[in-house]
């Protein structure tokens, strides 16, 4: 205890360099913990995006690609699913419910998705949580739209707001569907998933938008079908983008999967969302690992900085050591003193790092949520974080033993006096 006080007093004498060392360690610890935090939170937020769906069916492509466009609304489908294929599998005896998804249009950067009532009945996220409305109800009229929580907040839309959808999802050369405006009929509660950033319309609404289109261009003049005239037409869709399937019995999952994969009508593919998600993680694992390694190296840099600071102070402190020896300190006390110095620097750095992390989380949480829709829970460090911090402390003590050993040898050689 006495030695510790001595170590801290001695550091106090060199408070400027000590402070810089603590800040360097603190910042590196913040970076490491933040990287880990974002990694784990992003992982759990992705994993909770879809639950309760047994199979996702789409055109044949990669399983990760199918998961990304159907669930995360990232990227685009290479091919469509014909409507009769949807009807075939929706009425399959082993299928409990089927949600059709039709993507392709957008509104001010948000994706528009055509679907039907079963989406609101059966889509689940997190731990089996259903979608709920903060205002309004599912679409009822042909030109009704249900918007996610982010859209309501970011664009300031509410019930009754009129919106014009744009054709396609690209950022350039939009052709819009100005002739058939939609009205907000419902606002969904926040889910923390891509649902918050999606505009939901009925499949018939989606069909009405494109009923007079030819070769990807709107009809002109007499060929155009007005919004009211479209109501009289048969608006059964011809194709959709993907299907989410819930089965009566999960033991039949693989049998239905095989049936989809071997379906004679058109080349289709069924993936288990949980399996595709794991495939996605294994692909992302490399990037995650690289990020982790970089932050570990940043921490090591901080510790090396500490090592340099202590080592370079040793020469100036020969007199200090000699005085310590003269009042009865043994070389091993000098050794311990320097180890304690390294440890206290590291502990101060870790505490500063934790403080900065939580300050950053506290400030950043609402910003990250509003900007990127990623909810980062502020939780106390778990076992994993403590292990990391313990490893940092251990590394700092190991590094501290280098100057400690030198000081030990020096004070053996110098004895009680010092020749300068």
């Amino acid at each position, binding site marked *: 205890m006495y030695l510790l006080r001595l170590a801290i007093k001695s550091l106090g004498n060199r408070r400027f360099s000590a402070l810089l060392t603590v800040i360097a360690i603190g910042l590196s610890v913040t970076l490491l913990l933040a990287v880990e935090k974002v990694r784990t939170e992003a992982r759990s937020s992705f994993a909770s995006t879809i639950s309760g769906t047994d199979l996702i069916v789409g055109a044949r492509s990669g399983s990760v690609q199918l998961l990304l466009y159907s669930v995360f609304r*990232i990227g685009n489908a290479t091919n469509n699913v014909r409507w009769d294929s949807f009807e075939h599998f929706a009425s399959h005896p082993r299928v409990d419910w089927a949600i059709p998804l039709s993507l392709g249009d957008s509104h001010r950067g948000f994706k528009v998705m055509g679907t039907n009532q079963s989406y609101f009945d059966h889509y689940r996220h997190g731990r089996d949580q259903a979608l709920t409305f903060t205002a309004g109800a599912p679409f009822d009229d042909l030109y009704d739209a249900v918007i996610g929580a982010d859209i309501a907040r970011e664009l300031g839309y509410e019930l009754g707001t009129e919106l014009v959808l744009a054709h396609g999802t690209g950022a350039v050369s939009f052709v819009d569907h100005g002739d058939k405006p939609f009205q907000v009929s419902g606002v969904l509660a926040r889910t923390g998933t891509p649902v918050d950033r999606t505009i939901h319309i009925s499949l018939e609404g989606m069909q009405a938008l494109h009923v007079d289109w030819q070769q990807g261009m709107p009809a002109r003049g007499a060929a155009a079908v007005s919004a009211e005239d479209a109501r009289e037409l048969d608006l059964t869709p011809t194709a959709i983008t993907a299907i989410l399937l819930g089965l009566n019995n999960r033991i039949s999952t693989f049998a239905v999967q095989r049936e989809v994969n071997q379906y004679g009508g058109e080349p289709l593919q069924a993936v288990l969302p949980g399996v595709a998600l794991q495939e996605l993680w294994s692909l992302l694992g490399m990037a995650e690992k690289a990020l982790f390694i970089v932050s570990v190296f940043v921490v090591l840099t901080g510790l090396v900085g500490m090592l340099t600071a202590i080592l370079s102070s040793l020469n100036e402190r020969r007199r200090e050591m000699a005085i310590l020896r003269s009042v009865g300190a043994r070389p091993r006390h000098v050794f311990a003193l320097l180890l304690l110095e390294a440890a206290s620097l590291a502990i101060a750095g870790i505490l500063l790092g934790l403080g900065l992390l939580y300050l950053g989380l506290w400030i950043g949480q609402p910003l990250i949520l509003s900007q990127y829709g990623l909810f980062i829970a502020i939780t106390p460090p778990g076992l994993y974080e403590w292990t990391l911090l313990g490893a940092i402390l251990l590394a700092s003590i190991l590094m501290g033993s280098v100057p400690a050993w030198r000081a030990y040898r020096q004070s053996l050689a110098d004895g009680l006096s010092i020749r300068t």
Partner: protein
Amino acid sequence: MRPTPFIIGSLLAVISVASAAHDHDEHGHEHESLSAHEHGVGSLNLVVDGGEVAIELVSPANNLLGFEHLPASKADKAKVKALQAQLNDASSLFVFPAAADCSLEEVELSSPLFETEDGHEHEHEHEHSDESAESHADIQAHFHFNCTQEAALDQIQVALFSAFPGTERLLLQAIGPKGQQGGELTATQNLIRF
């Protein structure tokens, strides 16, 4: 710190990788879409529902037998017979926790190689041999286990790799008590944890 753009960015990068990787096994999709016919690689589907465990193995015959042609010689026929016996005794291929008290209920095997085994239906055999002489042959096996102590069923060890050294990887799709999981099983990573 802007984490999500990074994540999305890597996701988008991954899409191209993933679709490129997929183009590879496109040719194998004609018949058994779960896995391409790639020697050394099989697919394993597994569902745990209460105490009932259903396992489905689809593997190129080569992984299990060392050849894929219809067994003509006496030695080949003996090999096929031995393989059938080995698969029928599936309790040595899948190791359950002892506390779960699992027992093998049923095994169903199917493969063009097994059909000719009995020798009945000669015409049928010939039709097949025309195809199979050139194309690859798969072996499909369904195993059903029943466990009386389902709460103790927290993992299953797949011992197929030591039994069949020709099998390098198994692409796993599993539905456990806590949900779906996927991945790849190998001789060193042969444990499915729930």
